[in-house]
Structures are given as C-alpha cells and as structure tokens.
C-alpha cells in the first residue's frame, strides 16, 4: 500500500554505544519540499540513511518507503573517478537523460571530463544531475548545495522542483532552504 506520508515510528539507532536517534517519530509528507534541520550530530544523515534502507534501525519502524524509487544526492559527491561526467550521470539512466540533466545544470562543455578535472562545484552539479536523470519518485538531498555559487544554487533548486516529486532536503542554511519556496520543516533535536 502506498502512503501519502512517510511514517517514522519510535526510531532508535546507535553506533558503537553512541545513540544517534532515540525514539524518534515523525510524519513526513510525500508532497512538496520537507527541510530537515537539526544541530550537527543530531542524526539528520542517519535518518536519511534509515529512510533509504541503507541502515537498519535498532528499534522502531518506517512506513511509506516500500516500493519507492529514491533519487539521492549524498553528502559527498560519490562520483566514479574513472568515468566522465556523462557516464557518471547516465549510471542509473541513459545518455539522453544524462545529457539533458547536465545541460540543465550548465555542464554542456564538461560532459567528457573526469571528476578530477572538474572543480568542487562542478562535481556537485554532476551529482545533482545524476539524481535528476535517474527519474526517482522521491528526492533525498543531503546538503545538496555545498560548493555551489548563488547562481548555480538557484538553477539546481529550480531543476529539482521541476522534477515534480517530493523532496526531502537536509540543509543548515535558511537561504538555501528558501530556494525551494514553500516547505515543511522537520527538526531533529
């Protein structure tokens, strides 16, 4: 059954004796943009990983993620160093979609370049283009604008909104959150 919210119930997760999330519950709407906030180390990325199924909770459950196809921008770029920008973006899609996503983010002239030949901001845009080209039905963005200038932040946010899928985004920066227009806020403390 598909939910219109992601239900997080009493989630607990520890790493090596250190509890990152304790009995955390929330309802995350599956429409529009939800900004996840919290102090450093509060467990924002851990919550992301639990929602994506990359970690298993010690206790609690998550409902509403089954059968979904998430497109992810990880906190790190995670580009294949041996593949050029186009190949990296086409990893989960095809060359045509990858070409369109890279062009949208202003990387037409850098498609054949390897990650080591790109600047930090360009690599970040390649990682965003990969998520856009993938065509997921929900977007998970962990600090997606790291290293981008204001103009490119606006272009990237617009491209993500145009994908017209629910967006979950972790950001510390109010100005970056505002790039998405209206949004719900989920605070982890």
């Amino acid at each position, binding site marked *: 059954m598909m939910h219109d919210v992601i239900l997080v119930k009493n989630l607990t997760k520890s790493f090596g004796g250190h509890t990152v999330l304790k009995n955390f519950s929330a309802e995350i709407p599956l429409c529009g943009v939800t900004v996840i906030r919290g102090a450093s180390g509060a467990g924002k990325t851990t919550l992301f990983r639990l929602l*994506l199924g*990359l970690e298993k909770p010690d206790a609690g459950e998550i409902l509403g993620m089954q059968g979904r*196809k*998430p497109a*992810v921008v*990880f906190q*790190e770029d*995670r580009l*294949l160093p*041996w*593949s050029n920008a186009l190949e990296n973006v086409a*990893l*989960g899609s095809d060359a045509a979609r990858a070409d369109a996503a890279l062009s949208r983010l202003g990387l037409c002239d850098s498609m054949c370049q390897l990650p080591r030949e790109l600047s930090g901001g360009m690599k970040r845009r390649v990682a965003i283009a*990969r998520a856009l080209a*993938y065509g997921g039905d929900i977007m998970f963005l962990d600090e997606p604008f790291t290293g981008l200038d204001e103009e490119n932040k606006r272009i990237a946010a617009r491209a993500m909104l145009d994908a017209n899928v629910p967006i979950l985004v972790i950001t510390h920066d109010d100005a970056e959150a505002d790039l998405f227009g209206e949004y719900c806020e989920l605070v982890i403390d």
Partner: protein
Amino acid sequence: MPSKRKLLQTALIALIYLAVWEAVSLLVGKELLLPSPLSTLSRLVVLLTKGESWLFSGLTLLRIMSGYLLGVVSGVLLAVLTARSRFAEALLAPLRAIVKASPVTSFILLALLWLSSDMVPLFISFLMVVPMVWTATAEAILQTDSRLVEMGRMFGLGRWQIVKKIYVPSVLPQFLAACTTSLGFAWKSGVAAEIIALPQQSIGYMLYQSKLRIETVDLFAWTLMIVALSMLLEWVLIRSMRRIRHDA
C-alpha cells in the same frame, strides 16, 4: 613510438654494459669462467639458426605461460572468494602463507614426486603466481570504496553492473601491477624448475647440459635467450595491459 633521443640513450646504455662485460672478460682471461660478449652473441646466433632451439624455447614458454595464466585465473577466483567470505579467508590464509614462505626448491622437489617432469615447471609457475595475484586482488577488492557501491545500489545497478562498473575499474590497477610482477617470478621459477626436473625439450635442460659439459659460452647464450624472452613477454604484457586499462 620511442623518440630518437630515447633510442640513442638505450643504445648507449647497452654499449656501456657490453664494454664493462668485455673489459671484465679480458681481465679474467678465461672463456671457461667468463666468455666475452662477442663469443656469447656468436653462439646465440648459432643457436637461433637451429630449429630445436626454437622448439625448446617454445615449449618452455608454453609450460611457463600455461602455469602463469592458470595462476592468474586461480588468484582472481581465490581473491573474490576470500574477500567475500571471512571464513574462506581464515581457512585459506595459512595455505597462502605457506606457499609464500616456502623456498621454491622445496616445491620443485615435491612436485617431482607428484608430477611428470614436463608438468613441474607449469606447476611451479602457477604456484608462484597464485599468492601474488590473490593477495593484491583481494586487497584491492576490500579497498573498493563502499560508498560508491552503496551509490550504485541506490541508482538501481544490479550485482553484475556493480562488479563491472565499480569493482573492476577499482581493482584493475593493483591487479595489473600484480600480473606484471608475477610474470617475472613465474619465468624465473619456471626455468629453475626445468633445470631440476629436466624435461627433455626445454631451455632448462639445455642449461643443465651446458653446465654438465662445462660449456660456459652455451650457458651464457641460453641465459641471454631467457632474458630476451622474459623481456619480450613483459613488453607484450605491458602493452596488453595498457589496452585493457584504456578499454576499461
């Protein structure tokens, strides 16, 4: 293509070595102990005109390369197995340590009891290559960035796609380096096995005969043949690897 300058440099270095060899040979003054470069090269030319020299070299090459290729394939399979399973690693690690630590001659003598003389060089080359390729490849598999693997899974790559697009390119540099290093070991230990096992049609047999008849010039000529074949093999391997890296 190598530049003219590089060719000239290589020729100059070869000339320096030949001059030193000639000087030491003149100093020693006995062909029986140290033949001159000229007599060695003349003997090599004579050997090269004989059909049996080509046959023996070809058979030596066949034995050693069969062991080498078998060793590379087995090394990769063992690397995948031990990188994936801790139990397999714990089970097989002592075996790898024994093969690495034991003197090659011990294995040659043991292999003589178990195998025909023709198979001993093949087996020994195999045995030298397996642990080198195994260790390097297993380490490279374990060092593959797990975050990239996780990313691949998130973007819908299946198991084989992850192997092809993430593991293979990540492991390739260390694997190819191990292949190049182990080729030299396979070649040296294979010829040593031939000298002890004495398969009738082999370079090792000819080396042994030269030693037995105290034909030092022949000994040097056959050694030169081994060096030339080894360099040729390494050249072919490095060129193939450049192509594999480029294609990957």
